[in-house]
């Protein structure tokens, strides 16, 4: 158990990394909505442009709902279905939305490859890929996993998405995905 005094260093770390909002733990449908609501209020209070507030909110929703769907599709229990979500700002005052979750190593590697491929596309190519994905039958789209959501996030980002994988014991790894709005 963490000593109360340890919270100070945690707080310092949050301040240092300009973290506005973060969450770590089992994530439910209602929790996604509640955190989303807090995020909306925060962006409103910060007087973010309505378009960038939408982009930040949308990125947060797609990332966290992707995690929920992934965990459900893989039959993960409550603890394995945990998510780590962080919303921060960078040196250039851009919003950074990051989310991490436990995945099967092969799925994590596939996502890393997909993020690398998306980084090569410009806005027009991303739009074409998005429209193509949108027209795919649901079954085919579902099997690829995180297809449309990832493209949506990439289109809302001002820099290529970044992803990393930390291999854990067994077949599992922790996947981190970061979008710069």
């Amino acid at each position, binding site marked *: 158990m963490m000593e109360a005094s340890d919270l100070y260093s945690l707080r310092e770390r949050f301040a240092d990394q300009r973290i506005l909002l973060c969450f770590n733990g089992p994530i439910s449908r209602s929790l996604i*909505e509640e955190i989303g609501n807090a995020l909306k209020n925060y962006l409103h209070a910060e007087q973010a442009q*309505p*378009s960038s507030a939408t982009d930040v*909110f949308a990125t947060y929703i797609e990332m966290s709902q992707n995690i929920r769907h992934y965990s459900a599709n893989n039959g993960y229990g409550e603890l394995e279905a945990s998510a780590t979500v962080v919303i921060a700002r960078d040196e250039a005052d851009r919003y950074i939305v990051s989310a991490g979750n436990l995945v099967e190593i092969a799925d994590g590697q596939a996502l890393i490859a997909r993020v690398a491929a998306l980084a090569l596309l410009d806005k027009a190519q991303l739009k074409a890929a998005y429209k193509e994905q949108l027209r795919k039958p649901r079954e085919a789209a579902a099997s690829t996993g995180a297809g449309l959501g990832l493209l949506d996030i990439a289109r809302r980002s001002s820099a290529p998405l970044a992803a990393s994988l930390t291999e854990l014991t067994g077949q599992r790894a922790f996947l981190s995905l970061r979008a710069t709005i």
Partner: protein
Amino acid sequence: MTTDNLSIPGTQSAPDIEADWSTGQLVMKGDSYPENTFELFGPVISWVDRFLTSGDQPLTLVLQLIYLNTSSIKAMMDIFDMLEAAHAGGRTVSVTWYYDSRNERVAELAEEFKEDCTFPFAILPRTD
């Protein structure tokens, strides 16, 4: 006379939905990002299907949708595809999408849907 109307009150993550058979108007307002879009859009899609397969009354879609998650976008695309098919079959259908002029993302979203539609599709700013 049919009284096949829909009235689904909105929530934080689901829009207000009102469908009136007698006027042929379907109105959707608000954000749409439910986790289960089938639950929300299933009844709307069936209503549109019933309406378009009976009679020849015009169908008018009035939208004030703001943010849609990608699965809501997929569901809306299904609705627009039904309208497109009905339009190709000679039915009068139209969409009017109102957006807050301060948020251009909504207009961009509406424009992308419009690209794939040949029926009347108006995208109008609101300043209130």
